[in-house]
């Protein structure tokens, strides 16, 4: 029972990160109808930026903030320089270009930093508090919950309470009408990519210390988990992404805890297959789009 409780908290902590990462995927999907397959690589790139800053200044928080800013810039840059010019007549085009970006980013990171694992620093201890003899949560887990919670609240406020959020939703929902009404549709798209990339890099910064550390391909498996989370929740639904992230996090935690860590990736694949074949629009929706998207 103690173990179950521990695994549950561990799973929620992991799930929070997957939720943030899935949220980043959903943001771009809603804005541009592209699944950003380069999201993982982009997040790793900003994590390397953080690594360099921490290495030079010794301050985790400075690295943290610079990495998030780098995420904003990288997202905006990718949209402005590359994604804007992708032809959308076939959904494959965006996917192929994003995969090209993955190769570029991983190649450049490998050239600059080398292909060995580097330790990623944490601002708080990862030793769990014990409550009644049961190891529950570490300070770091609380930090993860706080950071992801703040992102979810801020994004919700942005999209529901601010004129900018309204413009972003309008630009995604009805681009032509929005343009007639004076909304800069292209600008909103760039903003959406920038925000999504920043959220993605936050997720990367949070998850990398709990895995093996920094490596150009370190986010591959995280990307798969987050993609599964986004699909579980339905690619269109931000709330679904958060719930999906928690579900995937719990599942991975129980599976690694009881069956061994090497089985976990297969469990993700199995979940992805089951959801795609059973409820391709996610567990929380009633319409079918995966077959025509």
């Amino acid at each position, binding site marked *: 029972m103690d173990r179950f409780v521990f695994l549950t908290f561990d799973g929620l902590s992991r799930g929070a990160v997957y939720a943030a990462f899935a949220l980043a995927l959903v943001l771009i999907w809603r804005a541009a109808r592209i699944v950003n397959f380069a999201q993982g690589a982009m997040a790793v790139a900003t994590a390397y930026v953080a690594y360099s800053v921490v290495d030079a200044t010794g301050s985790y928080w400075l690295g943290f903030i610079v990495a998030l800013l780098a995420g904003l810039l990288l997202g905006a840059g990718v949209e402005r320089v590359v994604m804007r010019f992708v032809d959308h007549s076939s959904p494959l085009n*965006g996917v192929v270009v994003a995969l090209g970006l993955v190769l570029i980013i991983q190649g450049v990171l490998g050239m600059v930093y080398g292909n060995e694992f580097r330790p990623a620093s944490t601002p708080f201890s990862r030793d769990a508090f014990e409550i009644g003899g049961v190891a529950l949560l570490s300070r770091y887990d609380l930090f993860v919950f706080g950071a992801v919670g703040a992102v979810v609240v801020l994004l919700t406020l942005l999209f529901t309470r601010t004129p900018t959020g309204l413009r972003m939703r309008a630009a995604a929902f009805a681009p032509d009408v929005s343009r007639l009404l004076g909304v800069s549709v292209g600008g909103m798209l760039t903003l959406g990519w920038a925000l999504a990339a920043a959220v993605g890099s936050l997720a990367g910064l949070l998850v990398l210390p709990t895995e093996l550390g920094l490596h150009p391909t370190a986010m591959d498996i995280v990307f798969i988990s987050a993609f599964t989370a986004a699909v579980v929740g339905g690619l269109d639904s931000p709330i679904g992404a958060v719930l999906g992230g928690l579900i995937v996090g719990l599942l991975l935690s129980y599976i690694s805890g009881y069956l061994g860590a090497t089985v976990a990736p297969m469990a993700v694949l199995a979940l992805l297959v089951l959801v795609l074949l059973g409820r391709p629009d996610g567990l929380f929706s009633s319409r079918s789009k995966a077959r025509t998207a």
Partner: protein
Amino acid sequence: MTVLRDRVTTRMAAPVLRGRFDPLIVVVVGALIVVALTYTLPPFRTYQLATVGAYLCVTAGLTVLTGLNGQLSLGHGALMATGAYTLALWQNRFNLLAVGILMAILVTTAVGAVIGLAAARLRGPYLAGLTLAVAVVVPSIASTFDETFNSDQGLSVVLNPPPESMTVEQWQAWLSWGAALVTLFVLAMLVRGRFGRDLRAVRDDETAARLAGISVARTQVAAFVVSAACAGLAGALFAVLAQSVSPGAFPLTLSLFLLMAIVIGGLGRLSGALIGAVLLVGLPAVAHEIGEAAGSQRLEGNLALTFFGVVLVVVMLAAPGGLASVRVPVRRKTRAKKH
């Protein structure tokens, strides 16, 4: 219905693969060139030639799947791993290479059929995501069942020595090019006929294809199975060439490289598959030499990675319609010739 079908399919019967050359002649000439090359090239170049042959098997199959049928698969690296491990396990028990290669093709075909059944129900990013998951997850299977697959170290492959009159490299080149040319011939014959028309019809307009009486799902699964068989063969050849298999030989980047190869080679043309296969061997070799000249180990592998990525993005952006339009000029040119 038959009239409609004829109309739709003649329109679809783009002469993309209805080459100016008879496939049989191409195969015979190709075989002669390869044999000549194996007697003139130094051993290392012959080995690279053999690798091109092995890559050609999988890029040709992928061309049929992605170029002609419009299904994007990022899981072909994993399918190659399936073929390679099947061959390794078979060789280490029975040491009968011909049967081993057949077994590798059969097992991979079966795995491909399972993925293909799922793939036929999915479109666009969903299909890409699923096959990406396959490519990332499959290497971890080797660590989970480490008694059979020996974890990250992988397995070595037992092989009989080649006939005395040949060097190892010559034998390898003959084997992989024999397989590649047979693959090309079979695929060329397949896509010339009704199957090829069905593939293109489904790719261009599913609704029209369905109206014309083509079973969309069956065509898509068939395309996946055919390309999986090719990937299994390629995987088996890689196991023979390297005389070992390990999860590290089939990373996600392999699948992305394959995709790049067929995009650059020109989607939907089997000749493009050859260009892609040559690039897959040639570019890393060039990058390796640049890396050595610069004395930087970091440069070696990653330069090729970056270069492939840049080429992939540039090709996709420069071709005005992206993937779909890469084919259009070819089609127009040949159509104009007819009149």
